[in-house]
């Protein structure tokens, strides 16, 4: 990250090769089309460059930080889209396909959604719903609690437990 921030040769390329697939995939899942996913990749790397000195290793690994920067931008994009549409449908599930998606994009997005679903089979339905809302939907625990009709403490526990179980389960399969 330091090399990237200082503009050292090859650092940007290395960071791109390492993280672009995950950011692009996140864009496909959350934003639903190739153009938006590509924009998300570009916007994320520009933001990483601008905020390189804000990365705090004590707060989490670099992988997570990069991913959460991308996720935050994707959520901003969804919110802008919601404001633009200004219809009741705009509050539909965030992974709804955009109307200008091609059949290939829809297929890829479906595949991504399927992979996400498979990865989350280790979770209970409640944990999965809470994590989806929090991770892909950018919802706070209070919002998750309200949407799921569960106590706040339960929502927090479900999100936390889901992340810990995913870590254990997915690492076992790698």
């Amino acid at each position, binding site marked *: 990250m330091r090399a990237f921030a200082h503009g050292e040769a090859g650092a940007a390329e290395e960071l791109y090769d390492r993280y672009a697939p995950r950011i692009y995939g996140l864009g496909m*899942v959350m934003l639903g089309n190739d153009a938006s996913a590509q924009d998300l990749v570009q916007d994320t*790397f520009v933001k990483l460059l*601008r905020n*390189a000195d*804000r990365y705090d290793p004590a707060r989490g690994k670099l992988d*997570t930080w990069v991913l959460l920067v991308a996720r935050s931008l994707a959520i901003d994009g969804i919110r802008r889209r919601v404001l633009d549409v200004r219809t009741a449908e705009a509050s539909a599930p965030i992974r709804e396909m955009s109307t200008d998606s091609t059949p290939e994009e829809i297929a890829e997005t479906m595949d991504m959604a399927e992979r996400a679903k498979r990865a989350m089979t280790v979770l209970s339905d409640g944990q999965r719903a809470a994590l989806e809302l929090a991770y892909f939907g950018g919802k706070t625990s209070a919002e998750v609690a309200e949407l799921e009709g569960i106590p706040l403490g339960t929502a927090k526990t479900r999100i936390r437990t889901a992340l810990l179980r995913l*870590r254990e389960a997915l690492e076992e399969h790698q």
Partner: protein
Amino acid sequence: MTHEEVRDQLAEYLLGDLDDVSEQAIARHLRGCGTCRQELASLSEGVSTFARAAHELDPPPELRDRVLGALSEERKTPDPVRSAPAKRPRRMGVLAWAAAFVAVVLVSGSLATAVVATGRASDWHAEASKYEAFLGALGGSNVRTAKINSPGTPSFAGTLVLYDSDRDQSWGLVLVHAPGFQGQAQVTLHSPTHTIEMHPLEFESSGDASTWLVTGADLRPFNSVTITQHGSLLASGTVTSD
């Protein structure tokens, strides 16, 4: 905050979904709690592992050149935070001037008193904590301190005080005592990715010296300081946990 209260909110902290006050409280707790840091690391691994499994997809090949081109263009554009040398105030409001002035006067006064009375740097470190409440009222999210020590001779001892403002008016203060040392010394703040050169220390005949900066840059990632002369390390310090 208790461990249970912190653990309860760690996932939201990691995902960036907490308000500023809660986030800062947890950050303070984490600095002094290895158990909670370990829990945070586990949650972070969970997000990272899940991302690899759930949404990794090769982007179109042409995107690589587009993104690298955008980054190249971005580097040509001066950025106030990334490039801020912060040797001297970049953007100072009345509040910042007041905070810096009062703090420098107060802390320097304490320093002088401590030096005269005891000559012990550890007293300066203790003094720093007295201003936390005062500085917090000025919009600071946290005050962090570090003891500065030298690995050899001449003997350097002192304190680094970092004030993390949530109003773009953060500041840092370095106070040192090095009996017999003369001339100037370079002071550098370090984060994992960046450095900030402060105004050089200019030692008085008493061996005392101080320097400070006020900046709109985010100082939170900066947690250590080095003092050098002609490239040789004279002294250093790292911020300690709460």
